[in-house]
């Protein structure tokens, strides 16, 4: 996707180094809210192995086993890293003297895990207003949030940070690396897709879809140059919004007035977005990028009927999407298989479903259902308080669960690395170990899906960002005496 602004790593390194001190000061002076809310975590991070500023240490990693993902595993191999990139992978490589040697010859090295969908990096993931395509998570990512620390601890090096599932058009996702003190240090793709939710926050699905369609219609009109709605500019929000409603036809009017009645202040913002859609502007570019194929959508589907609606909208308006599936979407697995759409599963992979008529319980295993239908699925983690078990917080556990329901280990590991990278369009940079890829590497004590394996070291862009030896939080959790 052309619009993805892949970051200039080397430039960033320089910037980061030069301005490190200044930035810290700036943070202290200006980021008052930020600081008061997060002073403890800041201290924790600084003490607990926060990556030192400065990217791209040159490394040579001797590995007992390298899981390259795209190719066969390499036994007793070496990975050379320069300026944050992998420069060579193989056996019997000469190790230049200027590289820092990491001896992992009794360890397993795999590519950093790619999290295809998470809202945990945001301090608040949903908006009160239903239509906010102009928002970007880049403005809301909080690098201090425990999500990023947990990610590094668990070997997740790249994450798509996506607005939550409860806002109709929730804003733009971004792809970031999980290490860095400022969002700009972390960015891989600034505008990685528009979040759309098909789950009505209240009211009927009919009106929800009608409202969504009205927004898409408006953006489409603006693209085709049909400005018959007479919008006069962003500043005259409410007035032009009303014009808009009249011109947009019955569906729009019904949807808008219902929206206005239901949400009060929401209508202003929506009208704002609506009028903005009429002319190209930063406010509507996200919608237009979607319709011109410059970016994709992340479409949240609560149930199988939503999947059908998602496909209808994708066909009508010609956009592509990654589907974020709720638990009840599995009856649509056949349809998804036909389309080969990338899909992300609910974090609770196995659950019980009661038949409303017979009251019989049936156990549903999502990895099994989708695999049987021929759908390649991606996982997401759930580190919220609502999770039901420890396992849903860990990608390795999700993958291991899939293996217990019939997946091969290779499929499961690919679903953590190269498959999400492909779905996000960044497979040339992350998700596998090969020459030219970003040096995002995880050094493990054993097989990635083994119960007793721990992440020993996490490397992002050639920078060691996590070391288990220095992880005092983990020590406290595991060793009762350390408390």
């Amino acid at each position, binding site marked *: 996707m052309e619009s993805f602004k892949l970051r200039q790593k080397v430039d960033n390194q320089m910037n980061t180094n030069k301005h490190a001190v200044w930035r810290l000061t700036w943070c202290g002076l200006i980021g008052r809210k930020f600081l008061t809310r997060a002073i403890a975590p800041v201290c924790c991070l600084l003490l607990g192995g926060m990556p030192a500023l400065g990217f791209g240490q040159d490394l040579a990693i001797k590995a007992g086993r390298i899981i390259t993902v795209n190719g066969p595993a390499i036994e007793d191999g070496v990975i050379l890293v320069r300026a944050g990139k992998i420069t060579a992978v193989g056996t019997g490589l000469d190790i230049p003297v200027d590289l820092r040697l990491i001896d992992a010859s009794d360890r397993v090295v795999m590519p950093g895990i790619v999290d295809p969908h998470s809202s945990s990096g945001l301090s608040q993931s949903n908006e009160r207003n239903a239509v906010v395509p102009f928002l970007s998570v880049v403005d809301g990512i909080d690098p201090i949030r425990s999500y990023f620390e947990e990610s590094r601890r668990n070997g997740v090096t790249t994450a798509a940070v996506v607005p939550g599932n409860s806002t109709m058009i929730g804003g733009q996702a971004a792809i970031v690396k999980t290490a860095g003190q400022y969002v700009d240090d972390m960015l891989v793709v600034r505008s990685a897709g528009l979040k759309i939710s098909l789950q009505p926050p209240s009211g009927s699905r009919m009106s929800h879809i009608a409202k969504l369609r009205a927004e898409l219609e408006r953006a489409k009109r603006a693209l085709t140059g049909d400005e018959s709605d007479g919008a006069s500019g962003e500043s005259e929000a409410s007035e032009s919004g009303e014009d808009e409603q009249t011109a947009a036809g019955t569906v729009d009017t019904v949807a808008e007035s219902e929206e206005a009645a239901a949400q009060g202040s929401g209508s202003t913002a929506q009208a704002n977005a609506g009028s903005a859609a009429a002319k190209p502007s930063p406010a509507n570019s996200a919608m237009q990028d979607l319709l011109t194929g410059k970016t994709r959508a992340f479409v949240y589907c609560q149930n199988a009927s939503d999947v059908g609606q998602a496909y209808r909208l994708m066909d009508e308006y010609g956009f592509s999407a990654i589907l974020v599936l709720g638990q009840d979407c599995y009856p649509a697995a056949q349809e998804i298989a036909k389309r080969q759409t990338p899909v992300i599963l609910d974090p609770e992979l196995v659950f019980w479903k009661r*038949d409303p008529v017979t*009251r019989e319980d049936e156990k549903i295993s999502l990895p099994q259902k989708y695999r049987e239908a021929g759908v390649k699925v991606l996982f997401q983690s759930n580190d919220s308080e609502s999770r039901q*078990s420890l396992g849903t917080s860990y990608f390795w556990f999700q993958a*291991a669960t899939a293996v217990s*329901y019939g997946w091969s280990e290779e499929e499961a590991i690919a679903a953590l690395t190269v498959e999400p990278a492909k779905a996000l369009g960044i497979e040339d940079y992350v998700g596998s170990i090969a020459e030219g890829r970003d040096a995002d590497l995880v050094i493990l004590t054993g097989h990635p899906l083994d119960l007793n394996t721990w992440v020993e070291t996490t490397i992002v862009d050639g920078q060691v960002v996590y070391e288990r030896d220095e992880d005092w939080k983990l020590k406290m959790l595991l060793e009762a005496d350390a408390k």
Partner: protein
Amino acid sequence: MQIGDGRNRSGTPRRWDPKRVRSSNRVGMQVGTVVAGILSSLMLWSLVGDSDSTWAQDSAANSRVWIEASELHVGNGEVLRPGSVLVENGKIQAVGSGLERPDGVPVLEVFALMPGLVDAASDVGVSGGAGEVTSEVTPDFQVSAALDVNDPALQRLCDSGVTTVHVTPSSDNVIAGFSGVLKTRGDGTTRWLHQQAGMWLSMCNDPTARNSSRSRPEGLYVRQPTNRMGVVWILRSRLHAAAGTPLAEMDAANPGEAAPGADPNLRGVIDKTFPTYAVSRTSYDIETLYRIADEFKIEPVLVGGHEAYKVVDLLKSENARVIFTGLSTSTNGPERTELCWGTPARLEEAGVTFALAGDGLLNQARWARRFGVSESVALAAITSRPAEILGISDRVGRIAPGLDADLVALGGTPLQATTALEWVMIDGIVQIKTEGR
């Protein structure tokens, strides 16, 4: 009979269909209605069986089955590689490595075999709530009186490998009543091992939860206690009344006569005619619990124990038995206790006997292993240890001759998340068989 009500309210014997083929269920239910009361449930099911599954028939209670496993986990830490088991009449007849297989016995081959899991504390299946809001002391209550043996939750437990479950009253009461132990067979036949397994006490904040002065009490009656001190006082005063001795003299070796009108069930706690279980999670509640236990010379099983790592020495000196529930939740639990994944490993290191209990029991053992518990203790903590703590180790918890044929077959080694559970057998009958998993 109501068609479409899978829960079979009439209480006629009914067996879960491992393949969930409804037609065979229907046959079972209708025949069951007609002949209920004439035939025992076992007889019925050996007749009706599962028309689509030879499994159940092969392993029905009155027949024999031979099981060969590459890994046979006995449950007490011992592993036979390989091992075989002869099941006859619902009991384990023989176990060993290199046993000779008798002729004409159907064979099941599995990778790993372990005893059916024993969940040492669960609130599963109690219909209509397990707490009593009108009184904080209800020693005469029994969960066995309120247990819905057809509750689908029992089936779910069975599916997860749990074959025996200790169903407990709610911790909302200071003295909550009797728990019960039963098999998770969901065929509507009552499979009690103990209908009055033990008396449950709450030495925690739970009994005050609904009585806080800041909120309106839930029931019609305002009841005690409203704080933790009240919990301790109610517990101590009721035990004292049952013991019938002035507190100062409680150190005497023998308790005196009970006060007139003292509750006989509470007297049973003092006389240790049945086991006593006490829910405590924070370290200071655990300390209080054992202070009271010492005063009244009782030996409660500690349930909860989330902060046990802080009081390991106390637990050791009290020779405590612990039903640890700290791994059943991913969060800090009901009392926001401190999270410490290392607690089971710390208990093992100190030699304190513990069982794991609660949701996802097999996964709990896996997490315990990941968090430092040895493989043998992690497996024992969901099989033989809970059976010992509950006093039912002569029936379940190990794969040993004479014990009930409650077995779990796995596609790989038990303590890996990649391992699939293949079937679950209770009393010699395969209850759950998972296809393609």
